[in-house]
Structure formats: C-alpha cells, structure tokens
C-alpha cells in the first residue's frame, strides 16, 4: 500500500505534508486539489513531515488536502517517438495539451501509444544480455533507434524470446528475458528512468578527442569543442548567448540535438518551433526538426519544473547516447536552474551560501556536467553527449557562484563580452579570455593532424599570438596616441583586426555567413593568416587604416558569398590586386 499524507502548510510552491508511512527523498507525490492532481517532489523529510516542491501553482491549496505518494522518483519515458517533440520540463507533450493556456494538473504522455514501429530484432533467443544492450532497432524519422535492455535491470539475463521483424506499438512486448532464477521479464519498446540518476550503462568513459564541428569559426578554430565535451557560455544579457546556441544547434554535426529552454523567453522557443521545421540539417539535408527534441520550461512556467527540466533533457540525451549516437545538449540558461534551486533552498530555510545560493551549488553543477561525455558502450560502439550551457551572471559579473561553479566543471569557456556586443562584433566571444582545454589534449592534436592538417594547430596558435599582440598594441596606441607609436605597431594592430573581422566575427543572420563548414574555415584561415605574414609598406598610419579597411571589406564580402562561387572567385581576384598595391618582398 502506498503512503498517503495531509497538507499541513503552504509557503508559495513549498508544501509541508504530514505522512502516514515511508517516503523517500525525491519521491513524486500528487496533491489532490478539487479535480486536479498537482504533481510534487519530496525535497526534505523531517520526522513524519515531508517537504515537497510543487510543479504547479499552489493557488487555492488548503491545509487538510490529501496527498498520494507514488513510490517512485521523477521519471521520464524513453522510447521511439521522442524526436521532434516539444516537451515541458516534466516531459509532458505540449502539443497534446488542450487550450491556449496551460492548465494545472494536465499531464500528457510524450510517446504515442498507438503508433506502429517497424521493429527489427538484433538479438536472438539464448543471447546473454545486460542493461542497455541492443535487442533490436526501429527507424525514428530517418535514424536507427535502438531498443535496449531496460537500464533498471541489474546483472545479466538471457533472451528467452524475441519477436520477429514486424510492426509493433511501444506497449507491446518485443522480448522476454530470463534472470538467474528463471523469472521472466517482458520488455517493450518503452522504459522509464529517474531523471536525477546518471545513466551509467556503458563500459568506459575515455577522454573525448574528436572535433565537433559547429560551423562557428571562433569556436571551431580558436576554442574547439569535441564530441562528448563540455562548454559554457557566460555573458551579460543581450550579448548573444541564445543566438550562439541556436546557431550551434542548427549547424553542429550531431545526430541528435536536445534544446533545454530553461527559464528563458517563450518567444525564443517559438522561434525554434517556427524555424526548425523549415531549415535543413547541413550534414544530412533532412529537416532540423527530425533530429531535435525541445524541452521547454520557459520563465513563466513553474519554477520547480524548471529545475527538473535540465535533468529531463540530460536523461533523454543519455538514452540516445546509449544507442551509439552523437548527442548535442544545450541548456539556456543554467543560471535559471540555479535560481530555482536557490528559491527552494531559501524557502527551506537552509543555511545560505554566497549570494543566497545553496551551499552545495558547485557540486550540483559539477555532477550535472559530469553526465555529459564520450563513452564506449558495452558492445564496443561509441556514443557521446556534448553539453553546452549558458550562464547569465548577475550584473554581468563573472565572479558569482554559478559562473565560478561552472568554470570548474566545463572544459570550454566561451566568454561573451559586453564591449564586443556593444560594438556589434558578433559572436561577442572574447578571443583572449576564452579557452578550450581540449586543444591541449594530445589525442585531440593527433586527431586534428590526421583529419584536418598538421599545420592547423600551429596556425591557430600563431593567430592567437597575433590577436594578443594586437590588443597590446591597441592599448599602447590608446595611451600614446596614433603618432606616439611606430608605424609597425599600426600594421600589427590592423593585421589583428583583419583576423577579428574576417575569422572571429560571423553574422548569424546572414544566410551564407551563418554557417561556415570546416573546409571553408580552413580555406579562410589559410588566406587570412597568409595576409598577416606579408610585409607591407606605408608612409603614415592613416594609410595603414584605410588600406586594411579595404582588405577587410573584400574579405567580408567573400564571407557573404557562396564558397567558391563566381562572385567569391572574383572577390579573391580583387583581393590579390589590393594586396599587390602594398606588399613588399
């Protein structure tokens, strides 16, 4: 018999429940409010009192209302049919909900129970299997979707029977497994997993090393992220976090993209709803929606569900990773998640840490980022979750708990900067302060040398040195004046500006410039660095500026033209002519 309870107190969305039996931390319960059942999660237990955070508005709730406990933690359903869905933070299918407004207590299944899936067995009777092993597969949109041994099963099992190829619903038994004692375990195409537990059904988690192409030059060239890598994008409001994440989600070379809109604007989610069905995945030519899942818990949706939403998204990512797929997970913004934790912690009257965030914030962030990664599955195949979160630091000040906590956990740091945004130098990633730790991995270096070129990394380092030098020179010019420094300084500064304008800056709203495939990046990097290595002759600094502005102008036009098209080639010829004017030997 499951535990029941009675409401004893209400403080905003924190409800205190007197219970009549055992409860567990993070257990889900339902508060019976007139006709609606309001879902809530246990977050603290003191004696017979369970403190629960309610995933809905608590308006009208009264002391004395009944509560039913469910005996399980917050879970998601995993099975074919999740792709292309628009889910809320608790994995309800938003499209299935009635009416214009979200109504309290309306919960809808993320999967379609009637749809038939063409199942192809991969295992056969007699096979020894364990959790996450592939029993069969079906086609979800255009990709293979593996049906796996349920993750909750511990130890090893024998396949007793498996259905032949054919069409089945997610509810039909497709295989029967036997445990050591000979008990039969029926398996369907859908399984459940508690979101706050990391799914660890893989063999090992080596260091990631393969470049994940994002099509964003300043990332791929200067601060590359890898398949299974982690990165974060901190920045004051309006500096371009969301635009950058959207750009990556459209272009990155991933099999599955999961977007967790966590406590941000509804209109930004609508933008995805509107654009993705129209846009094509540049790598497969399929519609972007076909590889995407949206988990939307926007800022006006209940705060507790916002906290859950990032875990829901991560668990779905882990599910697809277990199929040997490259998953890209984005969360915008992880600060809203941290704030949700803070609101709760304050209501629980816990001892506050810095800025009133919970004391263990940093640990919570680390263990979340720790769930990403590149893994070798039990069958030797590989899969990955690349995770990129945005951080919205209060007052734009990076010395705050969420940024600092995330910096410890994430390996790439894409620091968006107010000044660059103000100057419309988009993406406003600070080229000097940002970093990718992966560049230092020898495995990564070897991978790049083999797959791109062995000149790539030295050239990138040369580029960074020049940018750094350009910045120093600029500071000196600011102090000493244009006349106060040698002409050479101006040349160095303008060479670094060429890199800035042509390589680092990229217009996310231009049809052509928005996406820069790696071959094109290689081409442009070579071209631009070639120019910076040339010697030029000038009489005075105004000439330097005027001249390099022309160079930048032509190169930018190239960025706006189709790669290797007629206009692109013409611009290249024009560039050669411009260079000839001033180059010396």
């Amino acid at each position, binding site marked *: 018999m499951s535990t029941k309870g009675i409401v004893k107190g209400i403080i905003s969305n924190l409800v205190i429940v007197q219970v009549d039996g055992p409860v567990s931390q993070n257990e889900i319960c339902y508060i019976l409010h007139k006709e609606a059942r309001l879902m809530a999660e246990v977050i603290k237990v003191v004696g017979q009192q369970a403190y629960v955070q309610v995933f809905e508005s608590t*308006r009208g709730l009264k002391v004395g209302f009944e509560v039913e406990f469910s005996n399980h933690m917050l879970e998601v359903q995993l099975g074919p049919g999740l792709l292309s869905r628009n889910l809320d933070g608790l994995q309800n299918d938003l499209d299935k909900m009635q009416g214009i407004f979200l109504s309290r207590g309306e919960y809808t299944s993320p999967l379609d129970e009637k749809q038939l899936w063409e199942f192809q067995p991969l295992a056969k009777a007699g096979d020894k299997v364990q959790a996450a092993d592939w029993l069969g597969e079906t086609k979800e949109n255009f990709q293979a979707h593996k049906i796996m041994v349920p993750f909750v099963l511990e130890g090893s099992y024998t396949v007793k029977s498996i259905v032949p190829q054919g069409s089945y619903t997610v509810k039909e038994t497709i295989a029967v497994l036997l445990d050591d004692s000979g008990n039969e375990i029926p398996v369907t195409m859908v399984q459940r997993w508690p979101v706050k537990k990391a799914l660890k059904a893989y063999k090992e988690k080596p260091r990631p090393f393969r470049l994940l192409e994002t099509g964003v030059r300043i990332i791929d060239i200067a601060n590359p992220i890898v398949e299974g890598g982690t990165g974060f994008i901190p920045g004051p409001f309006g500096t371009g976090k969301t635009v950058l994440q959207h750009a990556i989600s459209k272009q990155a070379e991933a099999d599955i993209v999961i977007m967790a809109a966590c406590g941000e604007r509804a209109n930004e989610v609508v933008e995805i709803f509107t654009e993705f069905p129209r846009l094509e995945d540049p790598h497969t030519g399929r519609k972007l929606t076909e590889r995407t899942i949206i988990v939307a818990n926007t800022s006006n949706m209940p705060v507790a569900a916002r906290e859950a939403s990032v875990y829901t998204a991560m668990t779905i990512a882990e599910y697809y990773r277990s199929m040997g797929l490259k998953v890209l997970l984005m969360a915008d913004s992880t600060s809203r998640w941290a704030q949700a934790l803070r609101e709760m912690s304050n209501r629980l009257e816990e001892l506050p840490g810095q800025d009133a965030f919970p004391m263990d914030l940093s640990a919570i962030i680390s263990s979340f980022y720790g769930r990403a990664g590149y893994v070798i599955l039990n069958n030797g195949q590989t899969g990955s979750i690349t995770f990129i979160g945005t951080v919205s630091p209060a007052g734009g000040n990076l010395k705050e708990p969420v940024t600092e906590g995330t910096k410890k956990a994430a390996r790439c740091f894409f620091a968006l900067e107010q000044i660059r945004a103000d100057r419309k130098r988009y993406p406003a990633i600070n080229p000097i302060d940002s970093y990718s730790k992966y560049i230092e991995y020898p495995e990564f270096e070897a991978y790049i040398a083999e797959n791109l070129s062995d000149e790539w990394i030295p050239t990138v380092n040369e580029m960074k040195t020049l940018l750094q030098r350009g910045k120093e020179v600029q500071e000196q010019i600011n102090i000493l004046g244009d006349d106060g420094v040698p002409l050479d300084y101006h040349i160095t500064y303008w060479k670094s500006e060429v890199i800035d304008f042509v390589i680092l800056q990229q217009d996310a709203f231009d049809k052509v410039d928005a996406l820069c495939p790696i071959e094109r990046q290689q081409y442009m990097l070579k071209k631009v660095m070639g120019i910076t290595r040339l010697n030029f002759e000038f009489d005075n600094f105004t000439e330097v500026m005027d001249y390099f502005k022309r160079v930048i102008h032509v190169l930018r036009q190239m960025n706006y033209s189709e790669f290797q098209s007629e206009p692109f080639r013409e611009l290249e010829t024009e560039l050669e002519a411009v260079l000839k004017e001033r180059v010396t030997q």
Partner: protein
Amino acid sequence: MATKAFQKIYTKITQITKATCSLRAANVGNEELATVDGNLAQVVKIIGDEVTLQVFGGTEGLRTNAEVVFMGKAPSLNVGDQLIGRFFNAFGDPIDGGPVPEGKEVEIGGPSVNPVRRKQPSELIATGIAGIDLNNTLVSGQKIPFFADPDQPYNQVMANVALRAQTDKIILGGMGLTNDDYLYFKNVFSNAGVLDHIISFVNTTEDPPVERLLIPDMALTAAEYFAVEKNEKVLVLLTDMTLYADALSIVSNRMDQIPSKDSMPGSLYSDLAKIYEKAVQFPDGGSITIIAVTTLSGGDITHAIPDNTGYITEGQLFLRRDTDVGKVIVDPFRSLSRLKQLVIGKKTREDHPQLMNAAVRLFADAANAKTKLENGFDLSDYDERCLDFAKEYSAQILAIDVNIDTTEMLDTTWKILAGHFRVEELNIRQDLVNKYMPKVS
C-alpha cells in the same frame, strides 16, 4: 468588494509586521483574499492553522482585535467591454466616479500560454521615432522596457509611442505614479480623443506601495481578455517597474526571506518574468505587447532590478541626453530590440539591417574619436568626419522628437553617410550600395 453576511469573522491577530499580519484560521486557501478591518489583504503563507496575510494598505494602526474575513477567492477582475475608457485602482475598483463595471469575473495572475500555442511575432509597430523604428524596431507581442534615469522624459516618450502605434487597446498600469504624471496621461489620452480605447489601472504615490503588486496582473488580465476573446492588438504600458520591484522587496523582507542581491527577493527573476512573459502573439491575430519603464539609479544597470529585467525582456531602450546636439536621444549602443530581426529587411526595405549596423558602427567610431579628443590627441581626417557625421545622425535620426516613416529614415541615413564616408568605410553589401546610396554632389 463587499463581504458576505454568513462568512466567519476572526478577531484575534497574533502577529503584526510592517506589511503582514498572522492569525489562526481554518479552511483558508493559498493566495486567497481577505479583509482586515475592511482593508484588503492576501494569504501568503499557511503553517498548520496559522495564516499569514500580506496587508496591501500596510499595517500602520492595525489592532490585534481587527476583524478578519476571508473571501474565498484570489484577487480578480470583472472583464468586459465596460472596462473601456475607465480608470481603476489596484483592486480594480473605479477611481473615475463611474459605476463598477459588470462582466465575467476572472482571477488575475492566471496561467501561462502554452508555448506551442504562440505564434512568432512578425508585425512591426511603427512609432515614427527613428531611434526606435530604425535601430530598435518594435514588434507586436514583444516586451521591452525603457531604462531611464528618473529625470528623463520617459513617460512622455511612452505616451507618444502609445498614441502613434496602431493598436486596438492601450492599457496603462501605473505604479507609484506621481499625481502629476497620472493627470498627464489622462490629459494626453483625452486630448488625443482616444479614451475609447484606453483602460487604466493606477496606483499613485499617494496610495500604499504594496498595492502596486496587483497592478501588472490587473492590467494584463484585462489585456488577455481583449487579446484572446476579441483577437485585438493590445499595448500594455507599465510604469514604473522599479517601484513594483521595491514593493516586492518590502513584502519579502518582512517575511524573513533571505534577500539576495541588492536586498531583492531571490525570486525576483521569476516574479518579473511572470509579468513580462504575458506578452504574446496569438495565432488568431490578438497580441499583447508590453512597453515598460524601469528607472535606474545613477544609470546603474547592474543593479538587480534592471539586470533581471534585461535578462527577461526582449531588449531595452535607453534614453540619454546628447549634449553635442542638446537633445534627448535613444542611445544606439545600449538600446536593443531583440525582435527587430523578425521584421527589418522583411517588412521594411532590404537595406535596413546593413544600413542600420553601418551607421551605429560609425557612431561608435565617433565616440572613440571624442575620447581621443578629450585625451588631448590629434584627430585624423577620418575621426573628424566621424564626429561631423555623429552630430547630424544624432539630431536627424536619434533624437526622440523625430517623427518620420521608416523609408524616410533609411533615405536620411544614406544621405548623411554619403556626405561623410567612402563606400569601403561603410562595410555594406555592394548591391545595396549601388541601389540606395545617393551620389554626393
């Protein structure tokens, strides 16, 4: 809001703080309204049989044997066409001497729109102010605040925007308005002869501050009625949201919540987002656009109120006095309309995006030149030209007294640019230059 005769009356208050009082009571719902000696209050916390009420009028002079009656419902508004042209207080009671409007009673602060039922905003809102229409184009369904110092004419600019925008209804939510500003809005609206599509909810400096907390929800509940039931385009004006947030902090600090940055409640982001996210474009044509005012103290945008606002709204409009031309301008650097991408170059001429960016970039170069000048350095010819450009651009485009249509704004900008710069200094796509840049004489 009369109470019913059979309701139970409590007369034993056990605790009083500046904004709240507590008593023992049974069968009370969270967020329910009550009266305390006739003054409105709302349930904010229930522990066992101890109920804490937030008293909107403040607790000054409150006696422990005051009569407390629970009303069995959350704050609500009677919505209907009878709201049109009327002025109400924070409780939705008329303050214009007119009758209490009849209509459907709806609880305020209702549920959120399902994101999949929204439509992407795509209709431009023209204001005639080039600093807005050209550089920071507004779109229906957007939410955007003016960030302004208290001495700037933000209410006037906002009233101008409201009157010029083509909308079906304007709903004013005034929080802590001075009586003068209240009368200003009233006069402007009646002089323009538009009272028949205006509704106002007003809390003045003379009213208790905690009452302000109800204003945005009242205004937005009325807005939802017209946008959802009548498919109308509704513009909601909220001024001043800083005073709203101040009222939030009064209440939360009185409830012993741990304050976070700038003594604001930790939930400030969620509290503000719940309001601003009511801005929406519905598929059936109805929309709610929110233009708000957030006053700054000493221009500090890192303060928790503007900071959280900036993270929620779709851009912000900065007003600043440009001493070089002696006019208030819409600051092109710190202002931003995030939704402009959805309309510029699509609903406006194709050269709009690139031209706008080029002009702002050159205006930035002018700012650098000015710094150089101030630091005593010589100016290059380019710097000089930037400075000349900036003056014309500021006076003819950025100033808030400009009132022209978008195409004229574009033509004017080209003309100013052509007067000072060469093509390669503009960084604009060649085909656009060929088509739109006037030849200099």
